[in-house]
């Protein structure tokens, strides 16, 4: 690792004098004014380090400002508390380089009498991500520099400064000092998985973390350190209380906090007794004002009702519509069946949907509990799942076209024998299929309700998913249970076969769209694997048809061919997953649409200068997002308004997994895309609805 220390530790004349005085004070308090100067470089050894041994053009890497303090001395956190001053870093980077905000390790709480400060004893590494330009010449050398100002204190405080340089070679990526950086990253506060809120009275500020599963017996302490230095009385002991809902930390409100912001950011330090040892965890929280959140958030009942409505609307989506249509066609043939039997079909279909939704919710909660930052539609972030969905829908489409002789109980019209035997299973399977094909779609109202559900414990959250499933099942269920309605259905006839074959086309369209989604996720060979998969499915269908038409040996042979095709398709699904391109195409996609690619660092920088910003969180697999972009955001009037108002348009692509985007979604109580946020400089950001209209966007822009 290249780690040349160029710490000059140049100290201000004043500081030297101060240090001299400090020593003098120890020796002979009343007399000496000058003595041996103590250089701050002896108190703080500072250097600039990089994670990789050499850097790759265009590829971000981590750097660290490492501060090693003399025993008992400390430097300060971003909020120094009652005394002190945060370490300041001014970057001097070669042209084309950009650097993120600093990431500060969780601080120690330093108490002296009634003075409480936040800082670091021993060693602290402040991390930042540096992005070099893509046009660096391999083999060349670059030099990064950071000028730092710090205050180092024991009992005395001495300001110091240093100019840190780090020469780096441009070359192929190779191993570096991952150990040091892994250790430094482990000391950063983790992003909190739980939503936090705060409430303020005249004397107190209480931060509540909902759903945080701390074992009350093991919990030794919990304290909240806000980033804002004017909010709380640092020295007053914080009181914690926990109930079934989570953990609340109450702090004394500072008299400086004359205005209470809508959001309080900071770090929650939690000490837990684990096996007799005290373990400290730090979580980064962004607590929304409970009062402000009152308007936008919803209750469990509301979430469930919204989900029910969203489920009903899902039926009209191009992916689900054919499944529903086919099921309704079935009903027309059940006319001669008993009403009870028809009801059982409705129940089986509903059960298929509900079971699938419980499995889906279970997977979502389990993965999130495991620390994955995912949300609704997460499964489409996996190319294997997208390919598998495309294959299933293609096979289903072939079957509607009459080219694939399986799943007949589901699709074949007019075969009462099959329906009698396999009918209920078929209805159950149709429910499962409806759920599977519904997952790429997002209906209005879904974002808020699923976002809410994921913040709840599983037992509560799953009810929202069940409501969504029930909504999806509802149209068919009502038809099945109210025989009077069935009389409105058209009489069976030859037109049904035509309609069925026609309904294959929305499915083919969905397949085409899924392959397009895939093109954002995998490289050319992955895409080829998926397309070959489609060919193989068609070939398998051809073989199966032959096998059914003939009898004897050839039939068995064709059956074998079909089975081999099926296995090959599964192998292809696996191979699709292998071809992941190294760089995301997100930046490219964003640039294509005239926006800039979203990163939290970019957003933070823009917001720091009170620049109005429009953030669009989207994904290639999110149809609602694409419709909004094409019809509304790309509209000339909207684009002109962006330009006139000098609004920066940031586009975040969630097609592939991106924890930074997930965190921003969660900050606004969402678990999936689309999300549209308009940051209005000094004013609070506003969230736009998930279905945009030109007028709506223009109206909100006009308020700027």
């Amino acid at each position, binding site marked *: 690792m290249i780690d040349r220390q160029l710490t000059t530790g140049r100290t201000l004349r*004043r500081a030297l004098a101060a240090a001299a005085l400090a020593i003098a004070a120890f020796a002979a308090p009343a007399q000496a004014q000058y003595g041996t100067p103590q250089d701050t470089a002896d108190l703080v050894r500072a250097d600039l380090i990089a994670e990789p041994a050499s850097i790759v053009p265009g590829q971000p890497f981590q750097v660290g400002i490492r501060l090693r303090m003399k025993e008992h001395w400390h430097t300060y956190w971003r909020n120094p508390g009652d005394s002190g*001053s945060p370490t300041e870093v001014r970057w001097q980077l070669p042209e084309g380089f950009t650097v993120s905000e600093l990431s500060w390790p969780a601080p120690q709480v330093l108490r002296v009498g009634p003075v409480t400060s936040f800082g670091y004893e021993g060693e602290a590494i402040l991390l930042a991500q540096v992005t070099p330009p893509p046009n660096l010449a391999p083999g060349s050398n670059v030099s990064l520099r950071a000028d730092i100002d710090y205050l180092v204190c024991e009992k005395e405080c001495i300001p110091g400064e240093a100019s840190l340089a780090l020469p780096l070679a441009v070359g192929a990526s190779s191993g570096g000092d991952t150990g040091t950086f892994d250790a430094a990253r482990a000391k950063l506060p983790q992003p909190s998985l739980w939503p936090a809120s705060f409430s303020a009275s005249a004397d107190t500020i*209480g931060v509540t973390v909902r759903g945080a599963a701390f074992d009350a017996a093991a919990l030794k302490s919990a304290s909240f350190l806000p980033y804002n230095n004017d909010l709380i009385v640092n020295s*007053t002991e914080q009181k914690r209380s926990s109930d079934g809902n989570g953990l609340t930390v109450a702090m004394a409100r*500072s008299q400086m906090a*004359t205005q209470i912001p809508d959001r309080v950011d900071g770090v929650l330090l939690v000490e837990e007794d684990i096996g007799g040892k005290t373990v400290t965890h730090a979580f980064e929280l962004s607590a929304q004002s409970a009062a402000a959140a009152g308007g936008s958030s919803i209750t469990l009942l509301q979430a469930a009702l919204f989900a029910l409505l969203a489920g009903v609307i899902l039926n009209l989506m191009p992916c689900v519509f054919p499944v529903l249509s086919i099921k309704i066609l079935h009903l027309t043939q059940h006319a001669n069946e008993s009403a009870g039997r028809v009801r059982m079909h409705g129940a089986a279909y509903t059960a298929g949907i509900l079971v699938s939704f419980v499995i889906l919710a279970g997977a979502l909660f389990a993965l999130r509990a495991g620390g994955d930052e995912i949300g609704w539609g997460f499964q489409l972030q996996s190319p294997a799942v997208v390919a598998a969905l495309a294959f299933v829908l293609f096979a289903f489409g072939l079957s509607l076209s009459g080219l694939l002789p399986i799943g007949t109980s589901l699709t074949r019209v007019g075969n009462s024998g099959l329906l009698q035997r396999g009918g209920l299973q078929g209805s159950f399977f149709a429910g499962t299929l409806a759920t599977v094909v519904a997952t790429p779609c997002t209906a209005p109202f879904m974002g808020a309700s699923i976002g809410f559900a994921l913040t709840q414990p599983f037992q509560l959250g799953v009810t929202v998913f069940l409501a969504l499933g029930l909504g999806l099942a509802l149209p068919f269920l009502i038809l099945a249970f109210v025989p009077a309605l069935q009389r409105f259905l058209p009489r069976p006839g030859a037109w049904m076969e035509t309609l069925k074959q026609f309904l294959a086309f929305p499915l083919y369209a969905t397949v085409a769209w899924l392959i397009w989604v895939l093109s954002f996720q995998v490289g050319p060979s992955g895409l080829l694997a998926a397309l070959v998969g489609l060919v193989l499915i068609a070939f398998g269908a051809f073989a199966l048809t032959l096998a059914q038409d003939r009898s004897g040996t050839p039939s068995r042979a064709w059956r074998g061919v079909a089975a081999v095709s099926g296995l090959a398709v599964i192998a292809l699904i696996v191979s699709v997953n292998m071809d992941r391109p190294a760089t995301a195409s997100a930046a490219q996609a964003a640039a294509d649409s005239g926006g800039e690619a979203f990163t939290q660092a970019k957003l933070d920088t823009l917001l720091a200068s009170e620049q109005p910003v429009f953030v669009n969180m989207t994904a290639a697999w999110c149809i609602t997002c694409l419709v909004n972009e094409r019809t509304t955001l790309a509209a000339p009037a909207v684009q002109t308004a962006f330009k006139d108002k000098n609004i920066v348009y940031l586009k975040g692509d969630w097609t592939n997994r991106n924890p930074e985007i997930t965190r921003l979604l969660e900050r606004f109580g969402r678990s999936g895309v689309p999300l549209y946020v308009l940051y209005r400089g000094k004013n609070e950001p506003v969230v736009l609805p998930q279905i945009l209209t030109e007028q709506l966007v223009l109206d909100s822009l006009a308020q700027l």
Partner: protein
Amino acid sequence: MNRRHFGAAFIATFCAAALLTGTAQAEPKIGAPAPAFKAVDSNGKQVSLDDLRGKTVVLEWTNDGCPYVRKHYNAGNMQALQKKWTAQDVVWLSVISSPPGEQGFADAARANTLTTERNAAPTAVLLDPKQEIARAYGATVTPHMYIIKPDGVLAYAGAIDDKPTARAADIEPAKNYVDVALTEVKAGKPVTTPATRAYGCVVKYSS
């Protein structure tokens, strides 16, 4: 927000408020009577806040070794402020809370030497080596500034200005909170910015 959660948060906040009121306030209340104190000044005179009723009183925590204090003394900023306001009948008390052996400690003689050397103009220098006044006022740093109105009510607590650095160059462009607050107190107006975050070196508490 979920109504149930709101309820929980409300109750939690309420309980917290009840708990917190039981503990001593680390910072004195702006708008409430300032904590009373009695101390001996560097000339051996007893000074009591009660005796100063009817006058505007400034408390200035100081430590001559602290770079932040030196910022204001080396540039003459603190002395100018002392002269400007003592001339207008304000009682200016510099408080030294460092215990013996710590940076900034001064006995009576050294305190007077410092005043002479620095050409300072406080009404008196209070010796607080056991940090009794510092604790009563929750003084955290040097310089930490307090203004008490003639009726004994605390009007301002916090920093001297809005540039929390040790650089003398930052004095000129800074907004001097103390000067502004004293002007407002003298005019009988409420103080616009009555509480700020003081900056500087930690007061050398013995424990």
